[in-house]
């Protein structure tokens, strides 16, 4: 077990950090801790899109590059700090499409150098991805298909419901977090709580468990996904996100919001 702030301190500037979006267990708590520690030059990966935590990190100046299939606050609309950074030209955006990000992670998960994916040909996303190549089917059937290289994030971070005594974490049906964990060099997980026992011995819990084999560190962060929903633990706080979206329309409003919701948390802790 480690603390949230120690976990954040372990993430080097410039790292490729994979974050799931708002419907898939982002660790908003760790994103805030990265901001508090003054992270710089992070390259974020949306798995497969990006949401609230990514907009916070961009607004706080922690991010050099974001590779994603979309950045959005969902019902609360466009991500304001992302949009501002694109307009200002201060953020490198590497556009992808959702299944391509899943596929690149699955290639790492399987230990193969690439995987093919249909679609994409004729899209300007492909035209702007020199790392993606069009190949002829090796079966000589005339099909042209895109080969996507394996992608292995330096750090994957997400928020699970709970960890057990052995460092296994339970993410329920959000199995993209499992693929992400398998594909990444380091996996940092915040949890609501730690419980005694071994989830892998329990047939009801095992299917939603990611083995501790893949997990480098676990830190407790209660309500660590807030304002995003966490399975059946707590719901989406739409008012909180809408208030953020309004505040963050301007840099000054964003800074004020951060002072209250990010930096004040350390003072209180």
């Amino acid at each position: 077990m480690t603390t949230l702030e120690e976990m954040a301190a372990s993430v080097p500037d410039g790292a490729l950090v994979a974050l799931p979006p708002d419907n898939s267990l982002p660790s908003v708590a760790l994103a805030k801790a990265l901001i508090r520690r003054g992270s710089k030059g992070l390259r974020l990966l949306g798995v497969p899109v990006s949401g609230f935590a990514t907009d916070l990190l961009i607004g706080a100046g922690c991010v050099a590059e974001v590779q994603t299939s979309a950045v959005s606050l969902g019902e609360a609309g466009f991500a304001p700090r992302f949009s501002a950074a694109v307009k200002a030209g201060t953020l490198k955006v590497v556009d992808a499409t959702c299944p391509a990000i899943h596929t690149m992670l699955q290639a790492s998960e399987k230990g193969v150098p690439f995987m093919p994916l249909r679609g994409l040909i004729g899209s300007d996303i492909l035209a702007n991805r020199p790392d993606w190549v069009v190949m002829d089917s090796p079966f000589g059937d005339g099909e042209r298909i895109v080969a996507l290289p394996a992608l292995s994030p330096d750090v994957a971070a997400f928020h699970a419901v709970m960890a057990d005594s052995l460092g296994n974490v339970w993410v329920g049906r959000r199995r993209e977090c499992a693929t992400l964990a398998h594909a990444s060099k380091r996996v940092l997980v915040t949890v609501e709580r730690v419980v005694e026992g071994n989830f892998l011995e329990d047939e009801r819990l095992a299917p939603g468990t990611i083995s501790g084999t893949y997990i480098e560190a676990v830190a407790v962060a209660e309500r660590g996904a807030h304002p995003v929903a966490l399975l059946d633990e707590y719901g989406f706080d739409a008012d909180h996100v809408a208030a953020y979206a309004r505040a963050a329309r301007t840099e000054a409003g964003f800074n004020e919001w951060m002072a209250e919701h990010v930096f004040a948390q350390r003072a209180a802790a």
Partner: protein
Amino acid sequence: MSHKPEELLAVTLARLIRARPTRHIAVGAASPIPAAACWLVSKQGAPRGEHVRLSLLHKRSGNPFTEGTRELFDLTGQGRIDLFFLGGGQIDGQANLNLIGTGEWPGRDVRFPGSFGSAFMYFMAGRTILFREEHSPRVLVDRVAHISAPGVSEPGVFRRGHAQALVTGRCVFGFDPARGRFTLETLHPGETLENIRAETGFDFDVAPSLGETPAPTAEELALLRGPVCDEMLETYPEFCSRVFERKAAA
């Protein structure tokens, strides 16, 4: 019977769904109107006796997938999704979609949220209904600034489906992938061919049978305002309140 514009759009989409065999529809867009159309089809009973399965990606409880967000794309790759809905910040006359933005790549003038899965889904779903309420030369352009997902594909590129139609707040276009062109099929009440031409940035054909988009029937409206609204209250409370004038129980 009077109806709201959203009700006309939902009924129009539902008729397009029922026009072709449809076993499984995925609805990923934030817009509640396609979701209402799907529920209407489901509540109307199957046009050919088959059961229509809906995977509503924004449903808060009972998410249909247990492999995470990957499963929608895998499911579509397998050919199990007959129909998907897509929109776009820009749509052009070849049915190319732009969800990236305008200005220099990657959208230095106006940045849209991004492409999501469109560059895959548009190829791999059995067919796609394009839906965008705003019908203006800003959205319906001659040529999109950036192509998120192309309307047609060259030989040698696997493609299972194309746009079936484009439904806007003003009209319904059909799409012919062989010719890569839209055809104006019906006009919503109050629209004229001249007005559509003025508000559309791309060239299109006009169906010889061009007429008015049929209004919802009393049965369709009763289903929409009753059982369809019941299903949508949890996910789209604001929409249900505004369009159907019903509120979720506190």
